[in-house]
């Protein structure tokens, strides 16, 4: 029964929750909690990724708290939404490090956002986890990059599809550092495998008209198309490709076709082959349970590598804190460098001490009716690209992103 006083009390509690924002637990005493921050775009153009990363981060934090917390304390997750705006990234990272004094920051989606906050968090001695697949090369002892890099995914994908479809590759890629670097890796692996890239076209992120490109690809007559297109506007390529009936003529593989599977129809994407550090179709009990919770409780329609590695990242950090027995940044870093490993929905992921990148399982999958089916698994792939340029054991004070020189 609801009487007036009870109603008032719950309304006040509701107002307090609203005022502090979602996910922030304020009813715990300050000394009982340790704060950590998540900085993910849950509005703006990147929200499709940010929302699921916040969901899996929340899930992992709840799991750690339910199993007794860390060092006898509960984790309090503070989520910031930078609204796909780089300026807000630096503002919120500063706030998290100086005002909230968080133990660790998880976040950043694009490489631009990572490079905006990475130096800042290093200066404030705040540990940083970046859980997105990216072009590789970051060399900094304060950051852990848990996503896959081109040497892990492209190296497997290109030979796989060349064996299946043929040697002549036509590359289409987004026109910024991720696309440019990935296109170079595609060329290198295509040539190493005895094939060739007949042409590479780059597209600014706002291009929606791919009509001429669809015809140019036909004129070049490749055996397959390799796509590293990124973002909302580029989805129209897949639509226009299918509208011309080309998806039945020339097969397509991609390093970026992930959440696009939710937006395009099965007729438009069936048969596309991808490679990631995680696919929703991974057939293990751990992943099935994970997918069920995320689909059900968090209402996320499709899981990508970004969100799953966010989940792995939080657990890697929490295990390291337990092992170190302290929140001291250097002790946690050393615990992570001592071969920290987490076995989760994406398989086994291990921190490589030399580069602070992940040694992970790579999955090749095929799009079938709005789902990715795993075709092949390549266990425990080394981040060979970053390893070629970065050695934090030898040079612990390095602090930069190398542009890896791809020899073709």
């Amino acid at each position, binding site marked *: 029964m609801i009487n007036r006083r009870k109603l008032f009390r719950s309304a006040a509690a509701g107002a307090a929750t609203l005022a502090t924002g979602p996910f922030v637990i304020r009813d715990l005493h300050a000394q009982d909690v340790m704060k950590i921050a998540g900085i993910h775009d849950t509005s703006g*153009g990147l*929200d499709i990724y940010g929302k699921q990363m916040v969901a899996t981060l929340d899930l992992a934090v709840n799991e750690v708290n339910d199993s007794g917390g860390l060092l006898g304390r509960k984790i309090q997750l503070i989520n910031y939404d930078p609204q796909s705006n780089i300026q807000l990234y630096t503002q919120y990272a500063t706030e998290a490090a100086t005002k909230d004094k968080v133990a660790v920051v998880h976040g950043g989606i694009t490489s631009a956002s990572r490079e905006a906050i990475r130096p800042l968090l290093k200066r404030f001695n705040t540990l940083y986890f970046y859980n997105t697949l990216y072009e590789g090369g970051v060399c900094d002892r304060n950051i852990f990059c848990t996503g896959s890099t081109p040497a892990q995914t492209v190296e497997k994908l290109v030979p796989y599809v060349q064996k299946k479809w043929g040697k002549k590759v036509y590359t289409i890629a987004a026109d910024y550092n991720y696309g440019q670097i990935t296109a170079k890796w595609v060329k290198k692996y295509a040539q190493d495998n005895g094939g060739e890239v007949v042409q590479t076209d780059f597209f600014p992120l*706002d291009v929606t008209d791919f009509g*001429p490109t669809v*015809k140019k690809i036909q004129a070049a007559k490749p055996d397959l198309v390799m796509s590293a297109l990124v973002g909302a506007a580029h989805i*129209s390529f897949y*639509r*226009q490709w299918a*509208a*011309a009936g080309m998806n039945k003529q020339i097969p397509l593989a991609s390093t970026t076709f992930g959440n696009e599977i939710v937006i395009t129809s099965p007729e438009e994407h069936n048969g596309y082959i991808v490679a990631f550090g995680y696919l929703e179709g991974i057939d293990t009990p751990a992943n099935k349970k994970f997918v069920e919770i995320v689909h059900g409780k968090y209402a996320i329609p499709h899981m990508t590598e970004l969100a799953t590695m966010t989940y792995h990242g939080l657990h890697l950090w929490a295990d390291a804190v337990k092992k170190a027995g302290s929140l001291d940044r250097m002790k946690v870093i050393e615990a992570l460098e001592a071969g920290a490993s987490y076995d989760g929905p994406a398989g086994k992921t291990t921190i490589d001490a030399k580069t602070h990148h992940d040694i992970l399982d790579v999955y090749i999958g095929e799009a079938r009716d709005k789902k990715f089916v795993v075709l092949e698994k390549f266990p425990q792939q080394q981040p060979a690209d970053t390893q070629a340029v970065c050695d934090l054991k030898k040079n612990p004070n390095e602090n930069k992103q190398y542009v890896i020189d791809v020899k073709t």
Partner: protein
Amino acid sequence: MDYFVILLLQIGSAIASLVLLSIGLAVIFGMMRVINLAHGEFLMLGGYAAITAYNHGVNLWLAMMLVAPLTVGIFGAVVERLVIRHLYGRLIDTMLATWGLSLAMIGFVTVVFGNTVSGISAPLGSLSIGAYRTGAYEIFLIGIAALLLVVGWLVLRFTRHGLISRGTMQNPAMAAALGTNPSAVYAATFAVGSALSGLAGGLLAPLSGVVPTIGSAYIAKAFITVISGGAAILSGTAIASTLLGAINTLATFAFTSVLGEVALLVAAVVLLRLLPQGITGRFFRRAL
């Protein structure tokens, strides 16, 4: 040979998309001298209207060719009544007001539909030309663009409404003295221009998908085409679209899509340097 045909078709579809993008703006700007900075958002609204109707079970063709223009046409009539009407003859004020309107529309649509891409698959399938394949829908759009221009010309040239709107366009005071009601003509013109934008937005949605911010991808091209075209609404739009679309496509085929865009912009700059009043400011001056 088939390559040549496919190149021609691609040029045709580039021209058609420019015509569709700019015809609504051309009607509003050409007849009323109102610079509608929310034009891109009118197109966006047409796309959302078509997709929403389709997702609610409306036949795709009805959704694109009836629901989209009707929705945006009615929206345009309301906007004219509430905002534009009070600002006739005040160019800067209308620009400011329509710019504000565009921001409000982006915000509103983002709240309702979310900042994610919605889309529908293009109908009609594909057809092959020699060794090449192309979407039949692109050819359909070329037909629609041509049809719009022809119907527009027939209406302006041979109907009483066309005569009245041409008169009001040339000299509103004289037209009013002869018994027309300029404000009714303006209201109707704005609604028709909006409806054309809605139609274009609906028709282009299957090719490019829609996001709340897609207007910004359209509006620059629309303005460049209308300004390059000059005073004559239909022939100006048609000639400018043909010129710019052909240059864009040829440069894209020869180089990359980035250089295609650059070539389009360079062509427009050169054109406006040589013909500041647009193409129809110098040639075909008596055309519609």
